[in-house]
């Protein structure tokens, strides 16, 4: 009974915590510009992230190592420095983008420019991390995040042409704007396969003291939670395709996306969109901020743990404090949150091999996983999708930038 409750709660938090600023921005842009044609990319990214999240939970439960600990121990500090620095930069930008998302949600409802919200939002984030426990951070915000299910409801209210939706799940070549098509595809993959997600997940498994008995929970949360979570991303793309695409609205700024729920729900749709954006980004900002502290503390061998009092892991607490305020300053400086988000997501796809290849080697190491090592399916799926995302990124990013 306790196990079932644990799995249910884990699944609910995965669903509620699935959307972040990257998933929202890329899905809305994809639907507005290419109707249902990029649905297959969301599906591909979801399959990859299910495997990666399951792997990071399995590593923690079996070896009692976080991903960072195991990578540093297995490959040595000098080698680990490369993925560490790449992760730090991308995580920092992602944190700024998430804070930007919260600020934009506040701008939508108050009319006050997002820049002025950056420092108050950062302060609330920091306070919650300082005072809260891992359970509050992980479950509290994710359960509020279930509000994003409003996108799923909107799909059924809008009655999409299901045949066209199904056709979008099959990979296809673009009929127009090829560079933009592939660039958005790369950004979708970068948004879904965020390294911070599985670094955070493995640290969380250690915080929750997982062991081999939790492998079932891990599999359930990864497979069911992430699959249902991706329904929200797919729904968002479908709603955008139904509302923005027919009007010819291409999303260059978040203001353009804010009206996608007004067609099915009227005024409440506007409030639901702002609340979904704000809550999803706030939850993701908490995770991204905490993840940066985990990665730095675990790499440098400091005390760490969100369940400890800040004075017991002062350097860990200082790390998230510094990162949150630096990220907030980027938004305060007026960087366009949507451009920052899309750039960060595309950059994530570029660094994926740096993070994922060592992870795969680790997952095949008998010393860490014993009989719970990866099988051929996990290895092949993750390898193929990572290489695909990387190749797409190095081709599409220059085309998009230099082609305007």
């Amino acid at each position, binding site marked *: 009974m306790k196990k079932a409750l644990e799995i249910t709660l884990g699944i609910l938090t995965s669903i509620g915590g699935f959307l972040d600023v990257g998933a929202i921005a890329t899905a809305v842009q994809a639907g507005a510009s290419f109707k249902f044609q990029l649905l297959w990319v969301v599906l591909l990214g979801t399959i990859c992230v299910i495997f990666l999240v399951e792997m990071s939970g399995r590593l923690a439960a079996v070896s009692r190592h976080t991903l960072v600990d195991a990578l540093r121990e297995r490959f040595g500090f000098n080698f680990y420095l490369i993925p560490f620095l790449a992760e730090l930069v991308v995580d920092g930008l992602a944190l700024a983008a998430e804070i930007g998302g919260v600020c934009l949600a506040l701008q939508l*409802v108050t009319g006050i420019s997002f820049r002025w919200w950056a420092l108050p939002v950062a302060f609330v984030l920091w306070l919650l991390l300082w005072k809260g426990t891992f359970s509050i951070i992980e479950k509290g915000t994710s359960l509020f995040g279930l509000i994003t299910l409003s996108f799923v409801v909107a799909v059924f209210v809008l009655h999409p042409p299901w045949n066209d939706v199904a056709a979008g799940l099959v990979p296809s070549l673009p009929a127009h704007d090829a560079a933009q098509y592939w660039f958005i595809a790369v950004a979708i993959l970068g948004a879904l396969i965020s390294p911070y997600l599985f670094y955070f997940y493995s640290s969380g498994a250690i915080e929750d003291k997982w062991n081999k008995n939790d492998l079932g929970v891990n599999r359930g949360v990864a497979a069911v939670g992430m699959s249902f979570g991706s329904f929200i991303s797919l729904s968002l793309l479908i709603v955008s395709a139904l509302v923005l695409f027919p009007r*010819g609205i291409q999303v260059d700024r978040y203001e353009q996306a*804010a009206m996608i729920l007004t067609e099915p729900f009227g005024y409440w749709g506007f409030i639901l969109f702002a609340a979904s954006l704000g809550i999803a980004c706030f939850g993701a900002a908490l995770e991204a901020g905490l993840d940066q502290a985990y990665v730095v503390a675990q790499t440098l061998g400091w005390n760490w743990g969100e369940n400890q009092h800040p004075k017991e892991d002062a350097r860990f607490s200082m790390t998230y404090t510094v990162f949150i305020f630096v990220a907030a300053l980027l938004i305060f400086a007026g960087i366009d949150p949507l451009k920052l988000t899309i750039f960060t997501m595309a950059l994530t796809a570029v660094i994926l091999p740096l993070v994922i290849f060592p992870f795969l080697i680790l997952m095949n190491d008998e010393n860490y996983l014993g009989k719970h090592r990866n099988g051929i399916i996990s290895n092949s799926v993750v390898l193929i999708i990572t290489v695909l995302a990387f190749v797409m990124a190095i081709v599409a990013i220059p085309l998009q930038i230099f082609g305007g």
Partner: protein
Amino acid sequence: MSCTQSPAAQLKTGLQQVASWTATARMAGEAWLKGSVPQAYAAQTLRAAQETLQEEAKALEEALPNSAAAELHASLLKQARSIAGVIGQMRAAVEKRDRQTLSHLLKQLEAEQQALHALSKRGGAEL
């Protein structure tokens, strides 16, 4: 617009941008009339649309059109300026909560949108 784009590509991007922000302004105006969005949001979005169209017009003015697309380029520039003007008036109407004027301006914007659509079609054939 990127400096590395060809004039034809610049024109195509310009057309897409103008059409996209015109549609955004129309949707925001209609949503405000229906009470689906707050006044602050509608005014903000209309301001963003107006500013983007003015920037687009400036970029079109600075870009050198090739001979084949010169007439199209001039038409788009004129259209972008005209739409930016209408959207500016729409913003003023929203700020004054003047629903009647906004309804009238929305009709004007719809006509501009149709003209833009015709220009787009012509552009598609010529470029």
